[in-house]
């Protein structure tokens, strides 16, 4: 599904070069549940940004469904993110002036789905994450765990092939954390491909592939 070939990413900080990723080669197959772990500053987020087509590698190639995508223009990459990749952020990043239902419906609207179908699908997704009764709540009226479940529902909005999560439990209490982990497990069991960057052993324990990253170099741990 997603392949990285000899991908490196360099940042220029002041007068010096910082390599966030070095010669990373990785294949993510359909149905994988992958966690990426490593210390702070090791390059986890950079890896996720490159997989999520938010950043471009300094060298190497990124392919999605067999097509090289690292040189696509911004709008085509945005289109791929909209339809084929779902993002879950550590800090939820829901739009404060929209209800849970509207937040979930936003990417569906951008995909050009008519209003009725869009809201039916958004409501079904909120049902899937157990928030039917919170559909018309604004983010400020929801707990951290509930906000993250809305964010997961939004990530599923256009039924993407790949779900990327960056520290999805980083801001949650243990009970909410367990709910989100169970949600990811359920999504994986329903056939979805998931890549999670995390520090959390509980989240890592739910995945079946574990990638360790140190100083920008990847190492896959045996199952």
């Amino acid at each position: 599904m997603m392949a990285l070939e000899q991908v490196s990413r360099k940042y220029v900080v002041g007068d010096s070069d910082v390599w966030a990723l070095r010669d990373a080669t990785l294949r993510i197959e359909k149905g994988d549940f992958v966690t990426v772990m490593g210390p702070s500053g090791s390059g986890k987020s950079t890896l996720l940004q490159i997989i999520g087509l938010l950043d471009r590698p300094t060298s190497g190639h990124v392919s999605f469904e067999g097509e090289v995508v690292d040189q696509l223009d911004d709008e085509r990459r945005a289109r791929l993110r909209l339809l084929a990749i779902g993002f879950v952020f550590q800090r939820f990043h829901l739009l404060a002036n929209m209800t849970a239902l509207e937040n979930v419906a936003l990417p569906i609207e951008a995909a050009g789905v008519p209003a009725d179908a869009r809201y039916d699908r958004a409501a079904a997704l909120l049902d899937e994450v157990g928030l039917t009764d919170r559909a018309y709540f604004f983010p400020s009226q929801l707990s951290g765990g509930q906000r993250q479940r809305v964010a997961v529902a939004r990530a599923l909005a256009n039924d993407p092939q790949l779900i990327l999560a960056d520290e999805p439990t980083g801001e949650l209490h243990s009970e909410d954390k367990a709910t989100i982990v169970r949600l990811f497990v359920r999504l994986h069991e329903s056939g979805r491909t998931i890549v999670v960057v995390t520090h959390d052993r509980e989240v890592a324990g739910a995945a079946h592939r574990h990638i360790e990253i140190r100083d920008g170099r990847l190492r896959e741990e045996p199952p």
Partner: protein
Amino acid sequence: MVVGVGAALGLVMALMGMIGSGMQQIIGDFDQSGANLYITANGAQIIPMQHGTSPGTIDQAGAILSKVRTIPGVRGAVGVLSWTLQRQREGKAWRNFPTEMIPTFAVDGEATEIENFVVMRKGRWFQRGNEVVLGQGIAGSKSLGLGDSLRLNGQDFEIVGIGKLRTFGPTGDNVAYVDARALRQHGVVGDVLTYVAVQTSAPQLVRNVVSDFLSIRARSPEEIIDETVKSQDYQGAMALYWVLDAFILFVAVMFVSNMLGRSVAERRVEFGTLRAIGLPSRTILLSVAAEGVLIMLASYVFGFVLSIGLGEAVNAWIARPLHYDRLFAVDATMYAAIFAATMGLGIVAAYFPARAATHVDPLEVLRGV
């Protein structure tokens, strides 16, 4: 933001409504008057746009007026002289008391012979040399009414009517009308006139006769309005108003653009998130542009209501005490033009903030900004 921009737009629309009203009154009076030709001195500006503009003087007016009246097809020809008379009050004259001057139209001929040329609000038009008709503005401001006596340049006049000649909009309400022949007999004025209003079924014939006199010319009301509108004074005044309006609108646009820019800056995370989850930049651009247009639309509605309120206030508190019919009128074309300009400016105001919104780097969101 809507209140601030709306207030600016309201001011612009009220101002334009007042300009439109002045012109409408002038045109309205010309339209309603039966006079279809006006004879003036060459180079005279019969509708003075600025103080100091000369309405001109027709010399040997008696001969010209007599000649015009004999032209076949002429139903009525009335000469008007714009003059100023000094009022004397009864009793002891106070030292240092300022001289009271009364703007006067001395009328030569039967004004009522021209259809709709005379507008009477009370009483009747003067018939004798010792009678006077007052415009309602001057009657109100001097607290004079029917039957009162008015001493002008040493001669007593009885007020027999409150009304006006239908010529140049509000001006007619603020003068006294007396018989020109009576003033000539008393040596107050000479054989001169400012203009001659003519109602005729053969205007070309009148033009031909008038063209024999080198110092005068005849023009239709349409020609006078056209000349006025094309005159340097009018164009200058209009340009000044438009510059003022453009400045107000420019400030409004800068204000909206600046506020939208700040709003976009405050919502960088939101726009970054939208870009990260894949919303096309066009969608973000249009959403911010729509916000700008909506703000301008709401401002327009606010400004529209405010301008009507301001206009009515001007009519009630300024126009009526000064005895003008109105100083503000709703002009649908002007409101439509300002609506179109406002919507266009909304897009202009939103363009740069909208572009800035599309350029927010989604990576900032993932970096936990």
